């Protein structure tokens, strides 16, 4: 049995048939037809457009950082980081604000991380689906949406005045902790949720208690996700001005006076006052402070991304 119309007419020569893209009569059954070609073009267009949009995202970050760097270039250097501001903040470095930001963030982390992680563990592993749990979930979601200035006002009322901490590092750190708590809880729950239920059931069926299962299987395998979430909140806490505005930062303070019950300086607030309230500040000092702040945030975020990708590559299942 012959295939095609060979006995009636000569078959078309291969190049022409391939160019025409006729399926059945061409010698190459896998040659693309007209429809295939149109599909390919549309696929390529879609890929290029989506890829271009994605890579455009780099532009704002590059523009901001580039602009800041250019303006701040003369002032940057290790001495900028290590010197204290002087001449009524018009010259000098950012040492005191840097130490202030570091302390604020550290203390708020020490307050928020344990509470947030343990709350996330309870909500994911123990809580039953009843009205109380739903109320807690609603509260966490709403807390995440509160504007940062409202956090600041709450901090004044609750920590500075009611708890009697006064305007201090402790009050500011507590306010920052309350601000970062909901996201830590959510990212902990997500990290715990990524551990398959089958592991827990296998442990329960062997007579392990819930806490033994969490301690030995669930927590060690979700630690990477939890850490990533916590570190991201560090960068957020470092950059916020409003929560610490009324609760703990001052325009000028000396590092050797820093203490839990004393107020301190902070990078974000320092930048704000330099830009708005101090006359005669040279551009490079202002932009230098901004570079340090943005650089700190970018560095912490990069560290969390690096940690996450490193721990993802060591996936155990």
């Amino acid at each position: 049995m012959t295939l095609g119309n060979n006995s009636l007419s000569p078959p078309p020569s291969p190049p022409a048939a391939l160019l025409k893209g006729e399926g059945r009569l061409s010698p190459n059954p896998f040659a693309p037809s007209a429809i295939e070609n149109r599909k390919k073009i549309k696929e390529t267009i879609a890929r290029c457009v989506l890829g271009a949009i994605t890579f455009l995202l780099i532009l704002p970050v590059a523009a901001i950082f580039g602009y800041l760097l250019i303006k701040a270039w003369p002032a940057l250097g290790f001495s900028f980081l290590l010197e204290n501001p002087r001449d009524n903040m018009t010259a000098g470095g950012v040492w005191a604000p840097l130490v202030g930001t570091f302390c604020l963030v550290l203390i708020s982390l020490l307050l928020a991380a344990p509470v947030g992680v343990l709350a996330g563990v309870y909500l994911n592993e123990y809580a039953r689906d009843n009205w109380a749990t739903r109320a807690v979930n609603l509260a966490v979601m709403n807390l995440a949406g509160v504007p940062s200035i409202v956090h600041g006002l709450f901090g004044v009322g609750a920590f500075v005045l009611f708890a009697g901490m006064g305007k201090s590092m402790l009050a500011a750190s507590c306010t920052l902790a309350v601000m970062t708590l909901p996201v830590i809880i959510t990212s902990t729950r997500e990290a715990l949720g990524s551990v398959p239920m089958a592991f827990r059931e296998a442990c329960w069926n062997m007579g392990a208690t819930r806490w033994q299962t969490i301690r030995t299987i669930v927590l060690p395998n979700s630690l990477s996700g939890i850490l990533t979430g916590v570190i991201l909140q560090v960068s957020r806490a470092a950059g916020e001005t409003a929560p610490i505005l009324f609760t703990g930062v001052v325009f000028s303070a000396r590092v050797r006076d820093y203490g839990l019950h004393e107020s301190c300086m902070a990078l974000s607030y320092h930048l704000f006052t330099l830009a708005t309230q101090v006359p005669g500040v040279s551009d490079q000092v202002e932009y230098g402070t901004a570079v340090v702040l943005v650089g700190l945030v970018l560095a912490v975020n990069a560290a969390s991304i690096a940690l996450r990708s490193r721990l993802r590559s060591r996936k155990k299942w």
Partner: protein
Amino acid sequence: MCVFVQARRLHHKKITMNVHVRFENVTVTYGPKTALADVSLDIPEKRILAVIGPANSGKTTLLRCINRTIDFISTAKVRGRVLIAGKKGTGLIGRNGPEAGTDAQRGSSHQLDLSPFSPGEDIFQIRNVYELRRKVGMVFPLPVGLPLSVYENVAYGPRRAGLHRRQELDPLVEKCLRQAMLWDEVKDRLDMLGTKLSGGQQQRLTLARALSLRPEILCLDEFSIAIDPVTTMRIEDILRELKNQMTIVLVTNLVQQARRLADYTAFFSAGRLIEADETETIFTKPKNRLTERYVTGDFG
């Protein structure tokens, strides 16, 4: 030692069958859905009982009642009694290691609750449910290797029960892996991650984990559906050997597997126990028309 004793005549031999677990009018509902309806069943000691039936007939629910993992399902309500016969004096992991334990080795350095069950205890009234779960081993349909090394996988149960000494854990791990016919394949790579084994190996690892606590009852829930036939055959050989040491309850969709392995078979359908008898009787002279239709492959 055992509460319920019945004597049966089979082929002119007097066979004594002790009952290990007794379901008395057990009804289990998940909200509006009934999973088990008024089930009364005796599970004989040191025999293999196969539980067969079409889908949604309550077979898995039956197993969950035995080791009380049904407690984890918030919508589940259990009515009726499930009684378990206990042996006095078999401590699980005593001070002198797993081989000892004929006397009550209590008050040892680890805080284990070694209180044995008194005969005829209601499972749902037992206070130390973790001890119950150690006495009932469970194998799931999908192989589950914990994300620990193979050694730590098998040692997980004993460690949670308080046994940490390497000179006791090492022989225990080896013995369980040998019993599960996995020792030769993993003996040189005991620190390999359990999740990296093949499916059949992981299922045997699950079996080794279940055996590591020296259970009295071994429950298997469709253990062969996700593994290859060769491993299935090997596990079936293991079960035949284990029959002498523990009671085995085998839930299976493969009717022929029940015929090969089981001494007794119980046929469930839509949550009701239709018929439970010796395997030969179920397959050759079933008393119920539905049973006959199922074992001949008419449905399910």
